[in-house]
């Protein structure tokens, strides 16, 4: 029982990374109908920027703002920088190619992903980097025999606050309504006076911003980061997006958390080596029996 609960908490922690990255995929897919293959690499970029701020400045940040203040400051910088990178990715790789159709977009997304990954490698090197261990002291609680680290609590809290904020913006505000409208039908949204370019700007800033923060938290949690980790996280997060229902914001969150729990249970009780195989089998089975995901709605093609 204790082990099960610990696995679930571990799963929720990983799942919250997936969920934050999945939100970015889902929002971009909703509006652009594009799998942003570069998204996973923006996640990596967030991890490396966070690493540079926390490690290379040798504690200047944490000394001036205190530990939590320092991390919050780093997260803000990382979030904003990666958001900016996201906007640039859209400007450079997607906007000029958009008129040429879906297939060209896939190639330019792949090209952008290769470019980002190798730029990160060129800047930070091919070997994995380790977050300084002194940033967050290892402290943990024992609640009814279940071990929970402080960092896990922080990560879960931050993730849930961010997700709640996104949910509120997209589902409850007027601007969110225009985002949803653009996702449903971009052309009609333009016709009723929605500035779709603003919506695109928004999703390409917010999605990567969240992904960047998730990258930073991932670095703090696992400590080791490498230039090519984004691909694996990206693929998992995209699986989460499909699981929850692509283009569906609460779906992306639910899908991410479920996938995280699922993965950690598989690793704990079945086999660590085969867990990724099971994840992809679940992805395929979901697509066969419920292609619209858990929370997605049915859409009919007009003939």
């Amino acid at each position, binding site marked *: 029982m204790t082990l099960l609960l610990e696995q679930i908490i571990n799963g929720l922690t990983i799942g919250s990374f997936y969920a934050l990255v999945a939100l970015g995929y889902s929002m971009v*897919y909703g509006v652009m*109908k594009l*799998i942003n*293959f570069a998204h996973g690499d923006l996640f990596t970029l967030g991890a490396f920027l966070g690493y540079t701020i926390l490690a290379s400045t040798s504690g200047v940040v944490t000394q001036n703002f205190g530990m939590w203040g320092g991390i919050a400051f780093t997260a803000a910088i990382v979030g904003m920088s990666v958001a900016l990178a996201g906007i640039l990715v859209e400007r*450079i*790789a997607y906007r*000029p*190619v958009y008129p*040429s*159709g*879906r*297939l*060209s*977009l*896939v*190639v*330019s997304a*792949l*090209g*952008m*992903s*290769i*470019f*980002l*990954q*190798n*730029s990160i*490698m*060129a800047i930070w090197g*091919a070997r994995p980097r380790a977050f300084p261990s002194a940033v967050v002291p290892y402290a943990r609680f024992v609640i009814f025999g279940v071990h929970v680290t402080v960092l896990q609590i922080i990560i879960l809290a931050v993730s849930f606050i961010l997700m709640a904020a996104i949910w509120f913006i997209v589902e409850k505000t007027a601007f969110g309504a225009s985002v949803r409208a653009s996702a449903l039908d971009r052309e009609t949204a333009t016709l009723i006076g929605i500035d779709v370019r603003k919506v695109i700007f928004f999703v390409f800033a917010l999605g990567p911003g969240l992904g960047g923060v998730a990258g930073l938290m991932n670095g703090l949690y696992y400590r080791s980061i490498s230039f090519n980790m984004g*691909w694996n996280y990206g*693929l998992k997060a*995209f*699986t989460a997006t*499909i699981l929850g229902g*692509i283009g569906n914001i609460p779906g992306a969150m639910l899908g991410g958390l479920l996938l995280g729990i699922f993965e950690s249970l598989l690793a704990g009780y079945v086999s660590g*080596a*085969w867990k*990724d*195989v099971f994840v*992809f*089998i679940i*992805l*395929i089975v979901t*697509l*066969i029996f419920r*292609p619209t995901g858990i929370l997605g709605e049915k859409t*009919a*093609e007009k*003939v």
Partner: protein
Amino acid sequence: MNITKTVLDYVLAAGRDKGKRPLPDRKRQGLLTAAIVVIAILPLLPFIDNYWIDIGFYFGIYTLLGLSLNIVLGEVGLFDLGHMGFYAIGAYVTAILNTSFHIPILALLPISALAAGLFAWMVTAPVIHLKGDYLCIVTIGIGEIVRLTMINNPFGLTGGPNGINGIDTPAFIVPIVSSRQFYYLIWALIAIVIFGLVRLQRSRVGRAWNYIREDEVAAEALGINVRHYKLAAFVLGAGIAGMAGNIYASKQMSVSPESFTFMESSLLFCIVLLGGLGSIPGTVLGALAITIFPEIFRPLAQYRLMFFGLALLVMMIFKPAGLMPRQRESGEKLRSALSKKRREAKGRLTGDDGCRKDMPPPGRAENLLELKDVHLSFGGVSAVAGIDAEIEAGKITALIGPNGAGKTTLFNLITGIYKPQAGSIHFNGEDISGQSPHAIAGKGIARTFQNIRVFPSLTCLENVLSGQHCRGKAEFTASLLHFPSQQDEETQMLDFSLRCLDRAGLSDSTDKLAASLPYGKRRYLEIARALALRPELIVLDEPSSGLNDAETEELAQLLLSLLHDGLSILLIEHDMYLVDRVSDHVIVMQSGKKIAEGKMCDMRKNPLVIEAYLGTEED
């Protein structure tokens, strides 16, 4: 104005323009011959060392893989980002069978192909109905499952992360060991594959693939078994990738999972897109670009992949159609590609008057089409709520009614795009309700669409040939080996399609791309395409919409002449002039129900109809 923007626009326009302007045939032939000569003699040149011959070999591997993906992605338009999985299956089957049982490598070539093809069939059959990005994600998953399985070393078969070593070299008369021999082996295989693919491109099978890529719904409605041809493309593509895996494994003498990553699958995807969808010379060029790029930029060391990513972006911005887009062949060329003997023998085939001979003459059953209490609702909204109707053979029946009455939905029910939730639809006495659209088309119901669905990047002739698809029989073997029956069939299809084009007044547009036709002519092209199916009943959804008065009159003449030839016609129409002019019988629908039927002149007086529909005209 912003000068950079203007310059950029100019460059963009020039780039896009060039992509569209076809190279003259002779120049293309010359380039092709030059390329073949270069590839053939390159390894014999004294200043080419083994290093470059090996690069030529890997260029060959990528070409073969690119060609195999081109079938799936280029010809059929299915997003496959896990193609390396099939290649891996071929390589591992070769490695395992060779190291365990010492079966010669080249004997394993067909076995690897079969294994990869079978695997592709097993994993894609349950997901083949998925569209676009969903299928793309599934193929990524398949590719990853294969790779991870190889790493996990199930039953000690795959050797885990280190893979399998000690694979034999192949032997064909003499043992194949040197770089040069491997080079010629792979390029000989490529030559055979290209020979086959060109034949497929010019056959009923290759065209069916292209119709699916252009418009799946229209292809299915024209009698093409979309599922069958999609699966066939995956199996064939995987089979060829499996062969590439076989040769690769024996060249390397080892296999390991790291050769089959997602990165490699995306490179293949880029090869096909760089070259141009469905273009064989383009794919070879794309493979060349992918192999040569890292070599040229070798001095840049770790930065070269960064530049490669950028190069892909730049290519997609300036040349989205690819380096060498597929050129559609003219009718003349299609004909001259057929064997000469058959063309000369075509005299005996021209007696065909376009009437269907494999079906009973029209008028046998008095009611060609019978609808009984047909129901369909979408999420509680009743689109068709219990329609009973009879469509008589040899007549023109018009279906009219205000917008939203459920007319198009009824058409979609008749043609099988939707399945009725209750009730039955009988055609020629046979219950067709619930059958797939392609089966219904094959039985003799052809349709056009309200919002024109021609195949835009194919020629008018190719568009019309799609209608002939379900009247032909030649599948893969017949098309690859040019069986006499297949050559006869092709000749017949071409001739009949040309006549259908002529009938619709499009004989001067035979070789034009459908996308380049003006709106009105596209409507006629859709009708010609439907005629090519040799239907008994032709179902037209608002054929006159968007036509001017003169064009509508022409349409009326065409419809009447078709009626004269024994066709039965059912049309949805809002143009009361046309309805009055051609229809024998009128059915009026409102809110999913039939409210009246009879002659047009009676309908004009019917109070229900006036209230529902015609009344608005008199306001």
